[in-house]
């Protein structure tokens, strides 16, 4: 069985494309940020683009599985991805500056819960 990209449903295709655009923006942002970091790097800043890329891969997968993604699941996915990306961005900024915040974990906790909720509700 061969599946063409053309088989992807319009909505999922759009979502996949949107997430790829966000991933590219994140990649450029972290690259520019690193230019001013005096050589200091953070894993969280370097791989900031991975969260939106995960979203893109998910929608690609969903479309191949012919699953319908409802509004609630899409909102949860979007909110989860945004929260994890924001958390990674802040942790990256803090690591490069040589500091930390007790609030970092909140982003990752809420983000993972929303992302998981979005994925599960998508598969149901």
């Amino acid at each position, binding site marked *: 069985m061969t599946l063409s990209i053309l088989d992807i449903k319009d909505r999922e295709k759009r979502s996949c494309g949107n997430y790829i655009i966000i991933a590219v923006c994140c990649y450029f942002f972290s690259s520019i940020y690193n230019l001013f970091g005096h050589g200091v790097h953070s894993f969280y800043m370097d791989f900031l683009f991975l969260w939106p890329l995960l979203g893109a891969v998910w929608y690609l997968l969903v479309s191949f599985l012919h699953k319908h993604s409802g509004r*609630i699941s899409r909102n949860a996915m979007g909110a989860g991805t945004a929260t994890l990306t924001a958390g990674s961005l802040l942790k990256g900024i803090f690591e490069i500056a040589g500091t930390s915040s007790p609030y970092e974990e909140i982003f990752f906790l809420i983000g993972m819960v929303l992302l998981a909720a979005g994925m599960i509700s998508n598969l149901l």
Partner: protein
Amino acid sequence: MAKPMKNVFKKPYAFGILYGSLLVSFSIFVLLDTFVIPKGITKVVEGETAEGTEGVTEEAAGGEALYTDSFYRDDKITVNITVTREYETQIYIADIKLKNISLLKTAFARNTYGRNIKQATSEIAEENKAILAINGDYYGFRDYGYVIRNGTLYRDNGNAAEALAVMADGSFQIFKEDSVSASSLLEEGALQVLSFGPVLLEDSTIMVSEDTEVGKAMLSNPRTAMGMVSPLHYVFVVSDGRSEESTGLSLYQLAMILQELDCSTAYNLDGGGSSTIWFNGKVINNPTDGRRAGERQVSDIVYIGY
């Protein structure tokens, strides 16, 4: 009530706008909390001194002082400043000889312990009538790392890093914060504990490799370090960097310089834009963070004075 809430989740953009606003607001709060909002404030009690260091007052200051742009001497303190150029970098070396360990002191920005309380090294030095001062470990930028200053314990929240203790007998002691408690250090006679690192020299041996760096930073940077030749004989080293005139030093180069100065123990302090050395009423190095010249505000200083 439940229905409108459900509708928010179902509307294409309403939820996104609402959640996005909350996320941005919370992110701004976290940034302000980390970098701007002062907290955990403890005003340093005036006249607070370590056990065994009391009685060092203005009256007890070491008689008539000889003070030039590169030299200070009285009965209790001798400071000799030399400026050299190595590794395409301007390096400022202060050779210090003291009669009493109480003359090696530390001070907080605005005379206050806490996070995000900052002041220029020169201002803190002037307020404390220092003779010589360098920036400290910028403890207020982190929530961890022991803080013992002038014999008072301010923070006992350690990490796995190696820290430097200045002991009551004038010796420098290196220890791992996860292997000894701050209170036991205090009982053993630690007057100052600085938590930044890494350790540059221990038993006159270089403890960093050629590619060791603070948090994967660039190899060449402005630096601040302090070393002990022998108890009551110390060296402060500050280098310029990140400029056309000065490349900056690697930690290994810094360690080599301190070894050449006969230090047995040496410790790296906060560098980069924080690196500042102040003597005879002025900043003598060229502090820069690589983008703009001038002093960066810091949490604390190490100084020589009465």
